[in-house]
Every structure is written in structure tokens, then in C-alpha cells.
């Protein structure tokens, strides 16, 4: 059994900000970043409501298909994002997500990577930047879901 922190379990059982964002005001935009697929066993849709003028994330919600740490990471991510400037948010790392949960088991770090990638996807979409694949990745596939290799995970964990 995984050694999940109480924080992980708390977010898993009482996830914050689940669902879609449907309502927006003038001057706000809703974007979605999606990663993973049902084939892989993990997928995340991250929805952001961005205030165009201040470039601030006013709301963040998620829909996650995945394990307890994927759900908890998504939930924690939305909390971290609310109120951040878009450019600040870009700098958010999966490590910060994991730390906000009091840490994740090493084998589960990629669950937080999923959050960071969904965030990247959402903001790239917002900025109109094309999404690149993760093809350059070498090493053993750990998470088939995103083509994340152990080398990449090690890089990210450090």
C-alpha cells in the first residue's frame, strides 16, 4: 500500500474545485488543458478562468480519471493556481504540487507531473502556442499515459 500523507488522503476524499467552469463575465476567458487518456489509466482536464486585463487566474477546476494521488494532485493544483498571474502560474512545478501535499511516493510523482502538464497545456492554449509532443523523451516508460520516462521523472524530481 502506498504511503500517502494525510494531506493527500484529505484532498482525495474532499477534492476542491471539481468539475467544469461554465459561467464567465465580460473580460474573462475559459481555457482547458487536457493530458492523458482513458487508455493510459490517467487523464486530467484542467479548466481555468482567466481575467484578461489582469492576466490573473480567477478560478480553476479539474476533472480527473486516475489514482488517489492524481485526484489529490489535481485538487491541490487548482488551489495553488487561484489568484496567480498567468506568467507566475507558468513557473509552477510538479514539485510544488507534490510539496503542497506533504510529498508523494516516488513512484507516484508522475501523478503530479500530469497536473503540471495540464497546466502547461491550458496556458499554451490560452496564449495560442502550439503544444509539442514529448517525443524527445528517452528511457524506460514509467507512465505510459504521457510517455513520461524515468529519466524525465528524475529530472523533474530534482
Amino acid at each position, binding site marked *: 500500500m502506498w504511503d500517502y500523507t494525510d494531506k493527500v488522503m484529505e484532498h482525495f476524499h474532499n477534492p476542491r474545485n471539481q*468539475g467544469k467552469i461554465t459561467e464567465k463575465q465580460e473580460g474573462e476567458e475559459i481555457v482547458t488543458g487536457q493530458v492523458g487518456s482513458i487508455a493510459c489509466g490517467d487523464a486530467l482536464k484542467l479548466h481555468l478562468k482567466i481575467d484578461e486585463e489582469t492576466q490573473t487566474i480567477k478560478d480553476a477546476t479539474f476533472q480527473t480519471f486516475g489514482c488517489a494521488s492524481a485526484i489529490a494532485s489535481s485538487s491541490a493544483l487548482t488551489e495553488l493556481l487561484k489568484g496567480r498571474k498567468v506568467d507566475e502560474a507558468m513557473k509552477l512545478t510538479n514539485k510544488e504540487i507534490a510539496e503542497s501535499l506533504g510529498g508523494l511516493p516516488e513512484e507516484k510523482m508522475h501523478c503530479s507531473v500530469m497536473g503540471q502538464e495540464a497546466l502547461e497545456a491550458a496556458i499554451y492554449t490560452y496564449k495560442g502556442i502550439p503544444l509539442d509532443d514529448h517525443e524527445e523523451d528517452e528511457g524506460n516508460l514509467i507512465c505510459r499515459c504521457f510517455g513520461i520516462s524515468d529519466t524525465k521523472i528524475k529530472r523533474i524530481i530534482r
Partner: protein
Amino acid sequence: MTNTIYLDNNATTKIDEDVLAAMLPYFTTYYGNPSSMHTFGGQIGKVVRQARSQVASLLGAEESEIVFTSCGTEGDNAAILAALKAQPKKKHIITTEVEHPAILNLCRRLERDGYTVTYLSVNSKGQIDFDELEASLTGNTAVVSVMYANNETGVIFPIEQIGQIVKEYGALFHVDAVQAVGKIPLDMKTSTIDLLTLSGHKIHAPKGIGALYVRKGVRFRPLLIGGHQERGRRGGTENVAGIVALGKAAELAQQHLGSIGREKILRDKLEQGILAAIPNTAVNGDPDNRLPNTSNIGFKFIEGEAILLSLDEYGICASSGSACSSGSLEPSHVLRALGLPYSVLHGSIRFSLSRYTTETEIDRVLEVLPGVIDRLRELSPFNSD
């Protein structure tokens, strides 16, 4: 913690109180070594013999055909390796895609050592194709290893039909019966099986004891080489308390076989209740040819670990995949072999009952589960699609 509702009996079982009572004297009172030349130790030989006869009786075997081991994994490893050593010229092994890691990982290792292994595929019901089996068998096939019943789906293989075919080609036939023993009647006297593995902790004996059936006349080479214990078939001081426990557990399992119908009724109640109350669910495997205690159910659009941890809040114990693979991130190799759609593959849960399971417990699961599934599906991005 809430009262535990233990529906994970294919992973391991509670030790029966009678089994515990039977083994206890061999820890602090009769702790001697059965190989000793004094009454204190020597008398232990008798109880080991009695246990051997109890295990033999459960299998319809002779006492001399039972070798005590430390677990199912040891039995599986010992059987395959003995079969290979007994026929050093034959370099081919046949098994199935859905075996336990104790067989599959051993076979992968043997491939690197120069053996060829055929992994028979299974259809969506988890059954192998006899034609594929026959096409794979050659004079070079040393051993065919097929599990009696699958630990994840409970699917039962037609072992004797398979054995008939195997025998035509002169190969040895090993059966991993870890999940079948105590759940379906076995009779080695009328069987085609040469080697059969069982494990104590799946039948209410403790962990750390198992047995291997070796048909009289089958040449055997020990995996653990040491003293003359087990008539030279397994070195190491006998785990006397474990052996006594396994004997008692075998006796109780034999008695219990008569009332296994009760477990099936509860299993069916659970399964029907789930299918009726929760949409987008399906039974994995072969609903007809199945262990009476096992139900593997796919819940679409959600992921197994999340289901298990939610159930855990209510003290309900179940599993996804085998306990052995749940440390990994891969979906179960057994369910993948069935060719399940991805939407189901990741959200499949095994409920496995025992003679201790009560109707109240089943009712409680049926009360709790729909809410758990609902909540997780609400979180899922695929639900609304």
C-alpha cells in the same frame, strides 16, 4: 477504525481458530526437531506425518506424493525447475498469459537462460484455445503449466481436458492450484496432473507454508538442497507448526467443500446487487466457469486505486489486480489478456469471499458502493462524454 469487511480472500485469508489451536503447542511446548534422535524431537515426526496425510486426503493423493514448501511461489518455482531438470534435453515450456507472477516471471527468466516459452492467449472469457495448445506442443515440450483457477477473475480452466492433450505429447503437466484448493474438489487419483502447487495462507492456514504434489513416479529434483528432510525433496528444518496448521486447514477445507454453495449465494447476491444498482458495470471473465467466491467487476470511467481507497474508508477490503502487481502502476496483466476495453480495464475490482463472509457484510457493501462509484464518476472527465 470501522469494523473490517474483508473481501480480499484471494490475496490472503484469516487463520482459522482451530488451525491456530492445532499449531500453538508446536511453538513453545513441542518445539523439537523431527530429525532428532530423542523422543522429544522424534515424536514430532508423527504429527508431520498426520499433517501430510490430511493434505494428501484433500487432494486425493498419497502421503508420499506431498512435499511441504514455504509458499505457493516456492511450489511453482520448484515444480517448473524440477520438470526441466528431469528432462534436460527438452527446452520448451508452455504456459498461459494469465498465470501468477510466480510462473510468469520465472518463465521470463528461463527465456534468458535459453528456454523457449509459449504463453497461450486467452479469449474474452479468459479461456485458452485447445487448438493453440495442440499446435504449440512438440516433443521438445518439457512442461505445460496452467493454473487451475485464476486469482483475479476466478475463471476455472478445464484442467483435465488440457491434461489429456498434454499427456499425448509426453510433457509433464504442472497445475498452480493455489486458488482452486479448498474451493473446488480435486482428486489426483483420477487426474492427469503430474505436479500441483498449493499455498496455506489461501486456505486459512498461516503464511509461510505450502505444499507441492508430485505424482508418484515423476522424477523430482529439489529446489532447496540441504538435509534429508522431505525425503530429500526439500532441505531445511521442517516448519513443524506451519505443517500442522496446513494439515488442519486441509482437513477443514475438505469439510467446507460441502457448504461452499453458501459462499456462492453471497457472491451472487453481491454481484447482482452491484450490477443492478450501478450503471456501466460488467463482470470480467467467465460468469459460468468461476470460483464460487470470486467476483471481478469493471466500473467504467474510473480508476481502481481510487475505488479501493474510497472503500477503505468504510473498512471494506478488496483489490484491483493481484496483490502482487498492485505495487506497480500497470493495469493487471490478466485483465489486459482478456482484451477488456480501456474504459473498464483501469476500474476493475476483485471481491473475494471466504467462509467467514456474512450476509450483513455483503449488504453493507451494497449500501456503500453506489455512492463511492458515483462520487468518483463525478470527478471523471469521461463520465459526461
